[in-house]
């Protein structure tokens, strides 16, 4: 039986062997660049709320009101996670949009759970369906409304992008609110038009550059391009936070304006910053 010292020695030898059998795929420079970029991003995102945004581009601030209307009318709400899914055979940019839509689903699910509104989640991917089911579970758990969980459901609409569009165009249900967030491609207009016709209100978003016009023409709140990924960070921008950000942004703009104006005046010789600051020329 090896002693602890021998065990540590063997472990160090094993690690040394592994390191000795390895080589960098890109060389030391590019590897450090990749790790450096990752470090910068990690520093940038270590905050839950974005700093600059003061608008409600996707109309997400109105979800609570939509849920109240749904509760009053006794109808449900629909969330479509787009048509890329997570495990489907499509490009990674499209599948990442489904991941970006999951925090938005969680936000809507919590609002629906608090209001007692049943939620229908539409997806064409089994993995996304499983994760959406977990999101619904978590929403009801966090709002202590587990007894309402059975009224919400995840609908697997079938394989393919046209299947989802066909379903929303032919469904007879009349939800109070519809939210479509995620990858939408050729079928985007059909998908959003179907939701808009049946639902009382519609919020839509996609990061597909070629489908920006579809969400803009769909009426209601729209998230175009990067906004879909940015929106989850702005979900809690309530009145107080929004006012603070607006005030800070105006101060920054005013400061920049003063700096630019003073620079122009200094360049054309009307004022001299040193004289102004030191009070030279004053009586």
């Amino acid at each position, binding site marked *: 039986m090896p002693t602890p010292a021998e065990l540590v020695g063997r472990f160090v030898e094993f690690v040394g062997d592994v390191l000795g059998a390895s080589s960098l795929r890109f060389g030391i420079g590019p590897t450090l660049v990749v790790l450096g970029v990752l470090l910068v991003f990690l520093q940038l995102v270590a905050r*839950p*709320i974005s700093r600059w945004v003061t608008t409600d581009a996707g109309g997400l601030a109105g979800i609570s009101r939509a849920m109240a209307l749904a509760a009053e009318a006794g109808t449900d709400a629909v969330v479509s996670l787009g048509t890329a899914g997570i495990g489907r055979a499509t490009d990674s940019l499209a599948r990442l949009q489904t*991941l970006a839509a999951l925090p938005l689903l969680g936000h809507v699910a919590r609002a629906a759970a608090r209001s007692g509104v049943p939620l229908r989640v539409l997806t064409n991917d089994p993995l996304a369906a499983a994760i959406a089911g977990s999101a619904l579970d978590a929403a009801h758990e966090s709002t202590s409304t587990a007894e309402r969980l059975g009224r919400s459901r995840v609908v697997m609409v079938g394989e393919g992008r046209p299947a989802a569009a066909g379903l929303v165009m032919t469904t007879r249900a009349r939800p109070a609110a519809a939210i479509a967030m995620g990858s939408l491609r050729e079928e985007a207009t059909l998908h959003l038009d179907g939701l808009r016709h049946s639902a009382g209100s519609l919020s839509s978003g996609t990061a597909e550059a070629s489908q920006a016009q579809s969400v803009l023409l769909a009426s209601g709140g729209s998230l175009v391009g990067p906004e879909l*990924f940015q929106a989850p960070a702005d979900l809690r921008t309530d009145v107080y936070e929004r006012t603070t950000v607006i005030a800070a942004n105006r101060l920054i703009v005013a400061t920049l304006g003063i700096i630019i104006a003073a620079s122009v005046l200094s360049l054309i010789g009307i004022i001299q910053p040193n004289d102004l600051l030191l009070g030279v020329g004053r009586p």
Partner: protein
Amino acid sequence: MRRATTPAIVIVVGVLLLVDFLVVNDSLSQLADLAVNAVILIGGGAAVAAVAALAVRRAGDLWRRRGDPVGAVLVLVGIGAMLIAGLRPGSAGATDPAVRWLISALLVPIAATLFGLLFFTTIAAARRSAAGRGRQALVLVAAAAVMLILLLPFGGEAGDRMSAAASWALDVPIAAVFRGILLGVAILVAVVAARTMLGVGSADE
């Protein structure tokens, strides 16, 4: 406990794949392949479970006489036809001629028919948006109208100039907007990935 387990799995697998991307090592490569294959297996299992759940739900709809019976029958017949074509004795699976016929003669034309509606729905959406007098929609519809006029098949010098203007619009302002969107998406995708690895959720949780 559940909240701690999921980020831990994400971090471990994410770091493993990142290190495998940066470092050439057989052991690491095998571990990374194992993780990727496990994801593929989970995805396959979830797909089978989802199809089974869909079939059970539609069969339940028929049995209890609720929902849309025509849709339920079509779903069940479709699943059955594809299963029989792909799994019958002697079938070549996904490459079997019967499976290919079902796809090329039924699914593709149905999807094409659906996409044929795009012309009408796009025109209707543009008309509705213009009637709503939303600023973004008005700019969008006006730009589309200008591009439509520029792309009209006129001949002569005027036609050449219109065609050149359309090409310039596509190559410069429209391409710039597209690239701007793609750059913004790429940056925020990286931010979202880092948020996921750090376990930074949305602020209202």
